[in-house]
């Protein structure tokens, strides 16, 4: 895959998870570490986003 495609995919995945994905997981149970499931989902993706964007960063620099 070209670096541009890699970067685009790495950007689109967390962006979709934090928009449309939120609609799909808007539930209380199962609670994770006490958090409602939807909030745990959002927090997890906020923390995962830097990993995705790091891949995007490396691919566009190489």
């Amino acid at each position, binding site marked *: 895959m070209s670096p541009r495609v890699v*970067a685009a995919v790495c*950007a689109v995945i*967390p*962006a979709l998870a*934090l*928009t*449309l994905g*939120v*609609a799909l997981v*808007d*539930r*209380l149970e199962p*609670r994770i*570490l*006490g*958090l*409602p499931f*939807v*909030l745990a989902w*959002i*927090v997890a*993706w*906020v*923390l995962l*986003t*830097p990993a995705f*964007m*790091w891949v*995007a*960063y490396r691919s566009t620099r190489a």
Partner: protein
Amino acid sequence: MNAGVALGIVAVVVVATILLGLRGVRGVAMDPQEYIVGGRSIGALLLWLLLAGEIYTTFTFLGAAGWAYGKGAPAYYILCYGTIAYIISFFIAPPIHRIARERGYLTGPDFFADRYGSKALGALVALLGFVMLVPYVTLQLTGLQILLQLAGYGRLNALAAVALGFFAIALFTFVAGLRGAAWASVAKDGLVLLGVIFAGIVLPSQFFGSPAGALDAVIRDHPGWLVIAGPSSPSGITWVITTTVLTACGFFMWPQSMAAIYSARNEDALRRNAVFLPFYQVMLLLVFFAGFAALEILPGLKGSDADKSFMLVVQQHYPAWVLGVIASAGVLAALVPASGQLLAAASIVGKNVLADYGFARDAEAQTRATRFLVLIVALLAFGFWALAKTTLVGLLLIGYNGITQLFPGVVLGLAARRPHALAVGAGIVTGIIALVFFAVDQAQKGGGVVAHSVFAPVNTGLLALVLNVVVLAVLSVALRSSGAARSAPVRR
């Protein structure tokens, strides 16, 4: 006595922060380039604080908690939009920076004026930015008023508190400049972090055993409060998603955010910041905990009073010095961003309206005009505060609806083949007219301009953005086929 301790701590912290800001700019010659965009030499770490400045405003500190308190789960959107905004910035900030450096832009509207070859478009964008910054500054002013009143244990009346806040903001704006503000952010973010950890972890742990315990109590007493489309939740999932998209697009459109992009030392610093800034967002989770805990400890706050939620708990259950420290964090979170916003609002009108049209040509006249404009924005914000008693989130959304109308113009402005300035301008004007129409329509349906627009099923700002893009596209094609002159060819 209590009021003296708490307000005393706030005063000491504010003065110390101003001194820190001044120390940061000591020995730096203050020409406009340095004052407005930090000489384009802000390194990765200071840049982090500048770019993240948005997150740690008084909105985060009070407004996000107030929303968790007053509306519940829809507040989660605040965690999502910043993260998506950083993803977008990974792609658009570096080229914006490169073009700005090559062409010597100082302000956000400079980008429009030069890329589309139209001084008038630059002036339009400047005026829009100016107007949309008013509710944003009002937000900070409202936050200051809440914090100072609480720290004064009700002894300080609202007007006196706002006047004091006003004075502090003006003072800070005159001394700091962009680099000074970045340095002041060091103190601000450190203290806010401390305050947020206290409010989001220590406070709920003392009342409920743990933050999760506070959530258990909310789930028991307010079923559905913690899911977005819950039975008691007033706004639907569609609104949350559309608002996330709108605010994410608008995040870097603010004049002060464009200035932060210009101020970077290089493109790589911007890219790396975009990668890691989402980590900063997680702090908002603690703010939600504080709001949910307050809902259980001190139920019954209505409307914009919800913004006081956890600060009232601190005031009633903790010693004055704790209140003083937390209030100081909040006061800095209002003061530092507010000064940046005042400066940005004043500088865009001073540069892209007055100077570009031949008024205030020399540097001295420009400085005078800019200071005068700072005062005007501050006065407008004051008037807005007095008239529209709305929640902090409501104020933020008014500003975002407007400023996001610049998004298509910025993104298309990066391309080699750009639409005609007329198409971009018409799109922006269409978006704004649509927003005014929606606002009037909602006001007539009752519930005020903000109350309803916040809970329409779809975010009205996004609807306006769609109309904006449609007009831009249609006009762009029409102008091209009619052979009207395109914008000046690009020099990359």
